[in-house]
């Protein structure tokens, strides 16, 4: 097992810049475009491909249901991890658990999932629910008390969701299927465990309909910007995506994450920390096509670039140098968000990645995605100690530092 520097690619429609639809040539409504993107990233040794997802449109781009898209991509790729997005305030944990488990079967051990606690009012409207929080970054402008109440509800629901999904993955022991001819039993029912979960937001009684997936527990990702989400990640996730520059320095965020992990008493396998960055890669040979000019063109088409994450823009050389600097701080990985899906991904793969390899970022080896991401094997909580434990109740127990 290696524990090196992981590289993720985050795909969102035509790109992370709102102008990408107009300026870029990626056609997110065309399945073939996604197959080509995933195969290129797969061949290049990128560790995971994450797919943004929402019941409401992501900008003007088309967006497939990320579980359908990743399952479709699974048989067309061989090594890359596939990461759909589940919004915990909108979906059923039972369906999400079986969908990720199925992806782990169709990809033969390459499934992961990103849990997202909520989104925009338009997404809540799509399931006929009243929006209680809206976008969390906007909600931070609310009076502290109100914000804390709202966030406690949403994250409380998210914690329950994650707990149920993990319980369902473990609800079958790996050897539950016995096919015992002597007793005519297909399974040993003693090796199947109903979660019998009752929470504040929902309850889920029965075991999964899908046997335990090949990885046991597919990796869980969480994008976090502030303290409650840091604690949420420490309780629910294997990998946290953080956003230096927009939410403090890398050192400050890592300190806050450590405080969060300690507040929820996370024991066992530590949270992997990846940074999330937008990238824009300019053509070094074209004097008129520098990063500033490309950004200006995108801004002209889609409005000024606004993001929850920082931007690394420059030539391939500059971008690679910046990523290697980040690697040298000891973080576990980076997820890049191409401002224009096809162009910036192609440039990243053909120009930046070779420089990262030269700089010592090796292609991770391992039998499945967990191993390639440096995660310990996932023992089943019903028979052994799971990879990590934490106190779920403390995610929303105290939020005073949010107002600080």
């Amino acid at each position, binding site marked *: 097992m290696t524990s090196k520097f992981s590289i993720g690619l985050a795909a969102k429609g035509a790109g992370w810049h709102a102008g990408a639809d107009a300026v870029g040539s990626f056609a997110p409504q065309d399945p073939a475009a996604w197959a080509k993107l995933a195969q290129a990233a797969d061949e290049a040794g990128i560790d995971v491909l994450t797919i943004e997802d929402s019941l*409401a449109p992501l900008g003007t781009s088309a967006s497939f249901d990320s579980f359908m898209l990743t399952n479709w991509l699974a048989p067309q790729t061989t090594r890359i991890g596939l990461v759909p997005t589940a919004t915990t305030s909108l979906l*059923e944990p039972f369906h999400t658990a079986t969908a990720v488990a199925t992806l782990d079967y169709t990809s033969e051990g390459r499934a992961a999932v990103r849990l997202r606690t909520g989104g925009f009012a338009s997404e809540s409207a799509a399931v006929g629910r009243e929006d209680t929080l809206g976008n969390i970054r906007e909600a931070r402008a609310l009076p502290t008390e109100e914000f804390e109440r709202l966030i406690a509800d949403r994250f409380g629901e998210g914690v329950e969701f994650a707990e149920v999904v993990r319980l369902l993955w473990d609800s079958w022991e790996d050897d539950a299927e016995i096919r015992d001819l002597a007793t005519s039993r297909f399974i040993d029912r003693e090796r199947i465990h109903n979660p019998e979960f009752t929470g504040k937001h929902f309850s889920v009684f029965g075991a999964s*309909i899908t046997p335990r997936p090949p990885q046991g527990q597919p990796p869980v990702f969480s994008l976090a910007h502030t303290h409650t989400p840091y604690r949420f990640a420490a309780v629910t996730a294997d990998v946290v995506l953080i956003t230096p520059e927009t939410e403090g320095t890398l050192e400050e965020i890592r300190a806050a994450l450590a405080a969060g992990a300690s507040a929820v008493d996370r024991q066992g396998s530590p949270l992997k920390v990846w940074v999330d960055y937008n990238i824009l890669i300019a053509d070094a040979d074209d004097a008129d096509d520098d990063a500033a000019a490309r950004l200006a063109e995108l801004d002209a088409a889609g409005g000024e670039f606004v993001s929850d994450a920082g931007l690394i823009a420059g030539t391939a050389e500059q971008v690679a140098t910046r990523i290697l600097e980040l690697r040298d701080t000891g973080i576990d990985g980076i997820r890049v968000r191409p401002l224009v899906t096809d162009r910036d991904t192609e440039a990243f793969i053909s120009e930046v990645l070779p420089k990262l390899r030269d700089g010592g970022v090796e292609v991770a080896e391992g039998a499945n995605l967990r191993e390639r991401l440096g995660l310990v094997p996932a023992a089943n909580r019903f028979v052994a100690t799971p990879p990590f434990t934490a106190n779920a109740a403390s995610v929303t127990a105290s939020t005073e530092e949010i107002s600080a």
Partner: protein
Amino acid sequence: MSEQHRQIHFAAHFPGVNQQTIWSDPNAGSQIEFESFRRFAEIAERGVMDYIFLAEGLRLRERNGEILDLDVLGRPNTVSILSALAAVTKHIGLVGTLTTTYNEPVDLARQLRSLDVLSNGRAGWNVVTTTNAFTGANFRKGDHLPYPERYLRAQEMISALEQLWETELGETTTLDSRYFQATATQTLPASPQGRPVLVQAGASGEGRDIAARNVDVVFSMFGEFAEGQKFRTDLDERLEHFGRNAEDLKILPAITLAIGDTEAEAQERAQAIRHAQVSGPNAIYFMEQIWGRELGGVDPDGPLPDFDPVPPTHATGRVPHYGDVEERTALVNQWRAESEAKGLSLRDLAVREYGRPSLVGTPEQIADEIIRRVDERACDGFTLVGDIVPDGLAEFVDRVVPILQERGAYRTEYPENATLRELLGSAAAPSVPLETPERV
């Protein structure tokens, strides 16, 4: 090809969670590994069939409060596995059973449209309503609907999905009905077949009306000749009532197969298959549903128990209906007489009673029978249920299909880029508008 035959349609049912699937056979493969699904799909596509059909069950079945361990257990998420299959198949339709009860219309519409676009117009939805609190215990809305309401909700769900599927990328629509209030903007382009094919299995009057009004295929339980014709006639009348052409609704009853080189060999095989399906413990489990009580200690290979059935004392996740205690007692008395006269054991009777309609015979006999039933409108083809995963339909594809093709009753290849609805040769039903809410 002198005779003119009606064209036959086939669906391939992936053998799943029930006693039909023989897991004890040495050739039985995994029920969950993707390779099983890939191979199953290859065989069905080699057989030029219309679609692959997957069932759904959202809670593991139980017996006396314990998980049922005698039959196959475990299956993938329906739409997810179909999406993966879309990537490894080219022509065949992909139809999944998805409940209207534990899904939000916008989410379900988007999943199915995603599958439809990713598969280039090959998606279908088998519409079911889930009515038990047993399954509801796994979902946010743990409650269940009273029986009459399930069809209201099913119709609303179909109408809601059609309304959502009619919007173009970026277009916003509002659902406002008794069960659904939502506003959604379309995130996907249209699929080549406009909207996914609809399949339904309801046999009740309300269920038949839902079918006649909305769907493209009925997955019926009427696999025998006479009952099939009767069902067809009834549906034809309902179709006319809703202003639809009879040819636009296909009826594909579920059927199992036993093929042999001679008729005797086929009969022997059919019997062997049923015995493999109904193990001793499985026979006891089946008979417990007739007796309404536990039959621990009863010998399956011995005579019938000498006590009478009682009102049911245990619930299961299985749904056979054998009537009230008087009806079941009458049935048991009749069996006792037969058992004594013919020396039948409890298991022999279970084997006989468990059996689904089957096509049993030589390849020629089976081909003749299929052609006869389709020509005489007892059905439009079949939903073929193999007994072994994943190769259960291979023999049918390799031995029966060529005969049907030779006789001009079945396509020899897929038309280029055909959608599932084009394979079925049907026009979609006019969409039924979502009704004005009468909120309770």
